[in-house]
C-alpha cells in the first residue's frame, strides 16, 4: 500500500484543519452559528488535524477498511459524511420553513382581526 505522505502535505492539511477550526470558532463567537450546528465542522477539523499529525492512523484505518490507497479512504469517508450532513440540514431547513410560514400567517391573521375590530 502506498504510504508516502510528505511533510509538506501534512503541514498543509494541518494548517487547513486548524484554519477551519479557527473560522468556525470565529463564527460561533460572532453568534452567526450555534455549536448545535457547528459541531460537525469542529469535529472534522480536529480529525483532519490528528490525521495530519499522525498519518499512520489514516494508513492503518485504510488498510482495515480494505482500501489500497489511504487517500481513497479519506475521500470516501469525507464524501459520505458530507452527504449525511447535507441531508440532515435539508430536514432542518424544511422544518424552519414550515415554522416561519406558520408564524408569518398567524401574525397576519391576528393583524387582520385587529383591523376588522377598528372598522
Amino acid at each position, binding site marked *: 500500500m502506498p504510504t508516502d505522505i510528505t511533510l509538506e502535505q501534512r503541514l498543509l492539511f494541518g494548517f487547513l484543519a486548524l484554519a477551519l477550526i479557527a473560522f468556525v470558532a470565529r463564527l460561533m463567537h460572532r453568534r452567526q452559528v450555534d455549536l448545535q450546528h457547528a459541531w460537525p465542522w469542529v469535529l472534522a477539523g480536529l480529525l483532519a488535524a490528528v490525521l495530519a499529525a499522525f498519518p499512520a492512523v489514516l494508513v492503518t484505518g485504510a488498510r482495515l477498511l480494505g482500501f489500497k490507497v489511504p487517500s481513497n479512504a479519506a475521500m470516501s469517508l469525507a464524501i459520505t459524511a458530507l452527504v449525511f450532513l447535507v441531508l440532515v440540514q435539508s430536514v432542518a431547513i424544511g422544518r424552519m*420553513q414550515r415554522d416561519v*410560514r406558520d408564524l*408569518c*400567517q398567524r401574525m*397576519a*391573521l391576528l*393583524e*387582520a382581526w385587529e383591523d376588522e375590530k377598528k372598522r
Partner: protein
Amino acid sequence: MNGLAVLVPAFNEGPSLPALIRELVAQGCPLRHILVINDGSGDDTLAVARSLGVATLDLAIRLGIGGTVQAGYRWALERDFHWAVQVDGDGQHDPAALPALLGAAVATAGDMVIGSRFVAARGGYRSTWLRRLGIAWFSGLIRFVTGRRIHDPTSGMRLVGRRLMKSFAEHYPADFPEPETLARILAAGYTVEEVAVCMRERGAGRSSIDSVTAVYYAVKVTLGVVLGAVAGRLERRRHAD
C-alpha cells in the same frame, strides 16, 4: 355561516387590483368577503387594497403562492365561510366565471371546482406552447396516478369547500401547488369538477416561471404529483380504517 370568500393572492399587483375588485363587486361579492393577501409586495398593493375597502392580509415576509393561498384558506375558515375561491391578483382570472363555479359546487356537492381553459373550446388568452405542453404532461401524469382526467391541472382558479379548506390549511405546497394538490386530493377520494372558463392575459406584472425555473418546475412538480398521489392513497386508507 358566510357564503363565498374570494381569495386574491397579490404580489406587486397594485395596478391590476382596482379593475379586478370592481369586477368582483359587479358579480355580487361583498367587499368584506374579498380578501387581498399581500405577499411581501414592494409596490403599493396593500395601500391600494385598503383604499378599495376589501379585507386584507399583510404577510410580513414573502411566502410565495403556496403560503399566501394557504393563509387565505385559514382566514376563510376562521370566519366560517362555506366556500373559498382563488382569483389571482394579476387579472388573469375572469370574475364573470364565479357564478358558474359556485353553481357547479352547489349542484354537485363537489369538494373542488376548477375553472378550466381546456374543458370546452373557448376563446380568450392562449398561453405559450411550452406551457400547454407542460399542462398536457401534468394532465397525463395525474390521469396515470389517479385514474382521473383533469384537463387543466395548473389552473389556479379553484373553488373549494370547507373539507378541503381544512385540509389545505394544514398542508399546502410552497410553490406550484396546483398539480400536486390535485393528485393528492383525487387519490384521497375528494370530488373534483371542472367548469369551462376564459382566462385573460395578465394585466400587469410578470410570470414566476421563466426559462430557468421551468426546469425546476418540471422536475419538482412531476415528483410532487407522484408523491402527492401516494400521500393521498395513504390518507384514504387511514380514513377507511
